[in-house]
């Protein structure tokens, strides 16, 4: 067992060694460099800053929630992390894992495919409103202009706002806005 562990470590070391060795070698060709550059860009930005002191932002709240694994996976697949950590302020409607599970079978798996990244990003942006909107404020608004440029209707049922047919289960203030946990995935209308 330990041996295996050690092999792992050795491998890790070798990897590091190679990595470091690379450092001393000047790049030979520009093509791979270009690719790398893009990769670096994809995973850089405010979302990747370590900060344990501030009030968690919308993304951190989702990541820390046991009920939002699908949402987090979707956000990562669509690479919209940085949009959720911006100073905002943002209102994020966060469907639970159960809400995602209620979608027709295969929908999520399909959306998580890399060729559907834009569709997925569009759906996720449909869950974000610019502005920090409490439930009280939401009851006063007939519709919300979402970050994907489409609108979602707000109804008031029993004094509570219902967003595009989704109920707000919980609301968590975030460092950069507010997260409303909802029980249904909001699907952008095909025509707006």
């Amino acid at each position: 067992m330990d041996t295996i562990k050690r092999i792992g470590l050795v491998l890790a070391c070798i990897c590091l060694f190679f990595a470091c060795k690379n450092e001393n070698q000047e790049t030979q060709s520009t093509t791979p460099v270009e690719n790398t550059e893009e990769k670096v860009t994809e995973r850089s930005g405010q979302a990747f800053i370590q900060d344990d002191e501030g009030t968690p932002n919308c993304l951190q709240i989702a990541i820390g929630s046991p009920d939002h694994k699908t949402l987090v996976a979707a956000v990562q697949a669509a690479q919209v992390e940085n949009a959720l950590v911006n100073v905002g302020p943002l209102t994020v409607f966060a469907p639970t894992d159960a809400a995602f599970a209620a979608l027709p079978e295969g929908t999520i798996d399909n959306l998580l495919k890399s060729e559907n990244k834009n569709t997925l990003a569009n759906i996720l942006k449909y869950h974000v409103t610019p502005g920090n909107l409490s439930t009280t404020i939401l009851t006063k608004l007939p519709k919300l202009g979402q970050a994907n440029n489409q609108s979602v209707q707000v109804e008031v049922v029993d004094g509570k706002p219902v967003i595009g047919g989704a109920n707000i289960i919980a609301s968590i203030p975030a460092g950069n806005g507010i997260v409303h946990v909802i029980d249904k995935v909001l699907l952008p209308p095909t025509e707006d």
Partner: protein
Amino acid sequence: MKHIIKSVAAFITGLVVLTGCNNSNQSNSKSGALASNVAEKVYVAPGEHDEFYAFISGGFSGQLSVYGLPSGRLFKVIPVFSQDAEKAWGYNEETKPMLETSHGFVPWDDAHHPDISQTAGEIDGRWVFINGNNTPRIAKVDLSTFETTEIIEIPNSAGNHSSSFVTENTEYVVAGTRFSVPIPQRDMPIKDYKGNFKGSLTFISVEPEHGHMDIKFQLIMPGFDYDLSHPGRGKSHGWFFFTTYNTEEASTLLEVNASQNDKDFIAAVNWKKIEEYVNNGGGTMMPANYAHNVYDESTHMATSTLKKEVLTVNPLEVPGAVFLLPTPKSPHGCDVDPTGEYIVGNGKLSANLTVHSFTKMLDAIEKEKFAGDAYGIPILNFEDVLAGSVEQPGLGPLHTEFDGKGNAYTTFFISSEVVKWKLGTWEVLDRQPCYYSVGHLMIPGGNSQKPWGKYVVAMNKITKDRYLPTGPEVTQSAQLYDISGEKMELLLDFPTIGEPHYAAGCPADLIKPRSKKLFPLEENNHPYATKSEADTKVVRDGNIVHVYMTMIRSHFSPDNIEGVKVGDKVYFHVTNLEQDYDVPHGVSMIGANTSELLIMPGQTETFLWEPKQEGVWPFYCTDFCSALHQEMQGYVRVSAANANTPLKWSLGEDIE
């Protein structure tokens, strides 16, 4: 099994480390091979000059910083709306009047949008105009002295934000109110805002030779928020465009209430038509109260004059002069391309960028195809004026600039990026991240018919982890991208002063030859100037004492003064006799309740000292001027208020 998984995990970790490290190494190698390339692009060797000047506003610092591009080196911070102890701006007696307003002395403002003067649609490098938002003012900075030489207050305005942009022959510098207010100001309930508050758009004429500013007219518009503006150019010269938000006319929780309309407006103003109307006696003179402060280079002094009336124009009285172009979702930046055909509305809550066509606008106006009106001002149909939209280029579009090669560059605040797109086809060509939350961007000459499309500077509001931390307040930044190729390339990331709100830039050669080296002593008309050591003196007038003092390497004249008493008001009028480039002298007196003076060759400046204690008090040169700088000092003997010490002064000999 568990352990195998563990080891596999470790192996994968290893791979990740490899790839990860590889990435950064290759990126470093890029920074190694390519990066030496990048470094070369921003490296300006010691003694060499930068290719461009960039004037980057300081936002809440109230100042304007002068940088070189591509190096990002800071050359000067020009005080505009804020006191600056380093340069005695707003502290010495000569410049205090520059900060006078109808509200009294206001030593701070929020400086936003510098714009360089133009001739025939091209940057001429003579002056930079910049707006103070908070207590509405427009300043003019002279680019031969790099000093603020004029400030005019804007009456009937509040949050002077859609300012200070110049028309293509600097006929006007334009200042639009952000906040609508009661015009004239009066005591009324806030809830009665709608329909009662008004927004003023102020056209300030600029006298061509000296740049003196004068309010030609104020257009009194509906009570929207006027956010940003730009002049037409080329074919649209004679028009001015203003974005609006809060067409809902909300007065509370605008965060929500000003975002209810699907579309707000871009107001298109035919200022030539209004100018003609005004020149023919049109408009209504209304009582007002605003300061006009002018610094005179010959007397080295500023004067402040309170003006008492302003000419206002009701847009309904000039038919055909003002139209409203529906534009989605609280448009922020209002940017006109170098040809003058396209007017970009950066709808900050819209995911698309809306571009209007000037030609289509004229056509719709001619055919009188109106969708309705707002307080009598015709509204055009969105579809009739739309040239096209850039679909989903990013989140939170704020501002667009142009490279003069048919491309536009837009900043996106929420998605923190600059996106390059093509005018006419509206296709997105490239995108580069900003670190982070970018506001304005600047291409030198980007607000003219002739941009120099080599670099774009993006100005970021948030930097978080980008620099060494300095406590909770960390520097904001500017980022320089090379835009000469098809793809943008990030070259440099440099810290800025205050909020780098916006900038203006131009080739250094437009400004460099005109930069002043000194002020000729014979042209110094300061009333307290002393042009030779023989003329120095100390004069008492009751408890006011005027010291006519000179400075030259490396002494003051006089440098011993006696006969000053506790309770006196002592004015030191100090003339720098040097006539040599880059030899300013400074002076300060122990206990003076003000800043030092920093006096340029040939210039006279004054500070006030009110001695409170008997004794012998030294003063000295505060700017390291020469090898004998440390010897450049003097004494003032202060006697009791009722003492009989005679008023005497000397240099080089004892006072007997």
